[in-house]
């Protein structure tokens, strides 16, 4: 079936100019300002005075060809046939004519059943990954756990009631293909990898030795077989080897857990971008609805909603009130694992007499 015509065709990126809504093309680079008409609905006003309406809705990211066609039908009807997706996998219907706005919203909410929201100071869609649906490495699911969590957070998606935007991400292994977030959910392992020495020969040995960031893997001969072994004291359960070599199994359905991290922020607004920090660990990996994750995330959002000042991102709020208070307010225990103990992290210790007493 396959044809050899493939090889020479380095076609590159699609010609996006063909996919621009006419008002986008016309006002390209000449937008003046925007307004949020209601949660999920934006209007961008060009210097020309043109108004382009955007209706943002939560998408499940994973969809059937039929669902895509349903989306297209709606966009044909109300959007001059143009739409886009966002960097967080929301869908954005682009509306040139104001009179199409209400019927479009109707169609999105009723026909598609997708909620409007994710704009302004709301919880937007959760950046996520493949999970058990397609990846070879996951310790948990992605689309399913996100569905369950968004069900529980949907009021905060549909309304703009938080101090600032909340971006959540969820990754199904320690590699973390999902982006950073104000709140991030991560799988954690609790054993060194188990080695299937029989299969090992198929791999290129030096590669897995070289990849281990803790220098924990070394070549070994076991029962006459060329294989590798793991120095358990050194291994930090990262799973980098597992990604390279299926014979090194890091996952464990019995012991893998989830942890939640807070305060990741990538924008440069006000404060410099910051990494996410450990909030709570040891959460059970509990399909199909992961209620413990929902409960913890809601605890965080509630405290943030109560305490954050307008424009303060989650991490900025915590920095202002202090981590001590964050743990008080959420009730999460502060444990020794919260202390970054690597030599590089000397600066994370409080090297001052500045503290709340």
């Amino acid at each position, binding site marked *: 079936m396959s044809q050899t015509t493939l090889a020479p065709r380095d076609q590159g990126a699609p010609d996006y100019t063909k996919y621009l809504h006419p008002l986008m093309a016309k006002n390209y680079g000449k937008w003046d300002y925007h307004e949020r008409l209601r949660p999920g609905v934006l209007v961008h006003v060009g210097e020309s005075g043109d108004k382009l309406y955007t209706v943002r809705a939560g998408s499940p990211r994973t969809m059937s060809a039929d669902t895509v066609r349903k989306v297209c039908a709606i966009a044909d009807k109300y959007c001059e046939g143009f739409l886009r997706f966002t960097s967080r996998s929301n869908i954005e219907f682009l509306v040139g004519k104001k009179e199409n706005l209400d019927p479009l919203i109707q169609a999105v909410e009723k026909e598609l059943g997708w909620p409007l929201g994710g704009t302004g100071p709301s919880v937007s869609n959760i950046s996520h990954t493949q999970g058990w649906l397609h990846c070879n490495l996951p310790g948990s699911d992605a689309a399913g756990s996100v569905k*369950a969590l968004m069900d529980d957070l949907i009021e905060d998606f549909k309304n703009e009631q938080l101090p600032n935007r909340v971006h959540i991400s969820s990754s199904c292994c320690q590699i973390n293909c999902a982006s950073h977030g104000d709140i991030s959910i991560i799988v954690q392992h609790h054993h060194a990898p188990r080695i299937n020495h029989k299969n090992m020969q198929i791999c290129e040995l030096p590669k897995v030795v070289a990849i281990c960031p803790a220098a924990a893997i070394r070549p070994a001969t076991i029962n006459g077989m060329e294989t590798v072994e793991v120095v358990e004291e050194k291994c930090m359960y990262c799973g980098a080897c597992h990604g390279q070599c299926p014979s090194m199994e890091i996952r464990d359905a019995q012991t893998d857990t989830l942890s939640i991290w807070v305060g990741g922020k990538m924008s440069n607004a006000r404060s410099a971008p910051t990494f996410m920090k450990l909030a709570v660990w040891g959460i059970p990996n509990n399909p199909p609805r992961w209620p413990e994750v929902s409960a913890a995330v809601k605890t965080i959002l509630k405290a943030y909603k109560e305490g954050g000042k307008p424009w303060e991102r989650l991490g900025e709020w915590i920095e202002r009130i202090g981590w001590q208070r964050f743990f008080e307010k959420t009730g999460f225990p502060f444990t020794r694992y919260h202390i970054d103990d690597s030599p590089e992290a000397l600066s994370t210790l409080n090297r001052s007499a500045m503290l709340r007493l």
Partner: protein
Amino acid sequence: MSAKEMALNTPMLNELESGDWPSFVTDLKAYSKKRPVVAQLLNQLEESYQTKWNYWQGKIINAPGYGGGIIARGSDKSDKYPGLANFHTVRVIEPPGWVYSTDALRDLADIAEKNGAGILQFHGMSGDVLLLGFDDAGSLQCAEDLMNNGWDIGGSGAAMRTLQCCVGQARCEMACYDTMKMTKHLTDTFIHYLHRPEFVYKFKFKLSGCPNDCANSIVRSDMPIIGTWRGAMQVDQKKVAEFIDQKGMEYLIDNVLTRCPTRCLSVRGKELVVDNSDCVRCMHCINVMHKALKPGKDRGATILVGGKRTLKIGDTMGAVLIPFIKLETDEDRDNFTDFVEKVWEFWNDNGMDHERIGEFIYRIGMLTFLKGVEIEPDPRMINRPRTTSYIKFEELGPSRFDGERQQNPPVWNRESEGRETM
């Protein structure tokens, strides 16, 4: 594709059909009537839910002449789910900014359905459109179909990866350069490197039109390109006054003036005074007062280097490499791509296998890197100068050695024996 009919048996997954968020389970269950392999997929997923175990194994398949773009997977349980024996994902380079006509979208749906499971994801975390569920032949046919219709396959492996950018000038008043054009330009210029993995490891660009960084470039890309401006921002004092009238002076103080990181904003009467020399282009005041304030007119971008997520050395953010660069003309863009090639050459000549450029810089040091890519140190590259007084000044000592890392071994790493691998 062997797609024998199979009854759905998904009690746990069914619990994901309730609730107000759209359910991929409901969608795929319905769709499995049309593409029976989807029932097998759901049943295997159900089994994963039951056992908390994963059943996919990695495989390898490439379209002739290409070195990546198809993420090949096969099920451990292909005896039970024969349709999943080969169930690959084809990555498709998205239109920059993820803009679509319905024609284009329908085209993708058709291609996805024709030889695959008909499952699409908008979008993968690297920006690609993901088409799921092709067997080996189907994958190649899918690639062929894509090509024929003007699409191209995305990146994987030790290659330049599919780029992604924010919507930028197409629908945002903040955009300081044309992110879409630049994304297409870089993709097309370097398409060879995207399709044929020749690097020591993957390399990602992400492009944001302004420091709000809606493409989340700083921690997810090896070379974040973030729009910014030089000189004064644009202030429309009439609209400032309107803002104050509408929101009140206290709102201005609490939400704009005191939130400026360098406190370079003040107000005289109803006039906003900006000390532009102290503005660090954080965007906050513009975000809040975007009708009255705009980025300045002399626009361009800041180029950073070395961002990536967790694997191996932990999350790492891009660091400033070129404080300001113009990206307006073809010449600007060519200068930049020339520079990128220089960076790649230095990294690939000296990097180790599976070493992202951020890890490479971590290992060899920023100074050696700057020298390697011929960039002069600039105080804007740092938050503060060094605090440790152990320095080896080449100018002041005999020049016995070369390479700064050698010259300034890490002070506190007594065990650094193995580090000077370069």
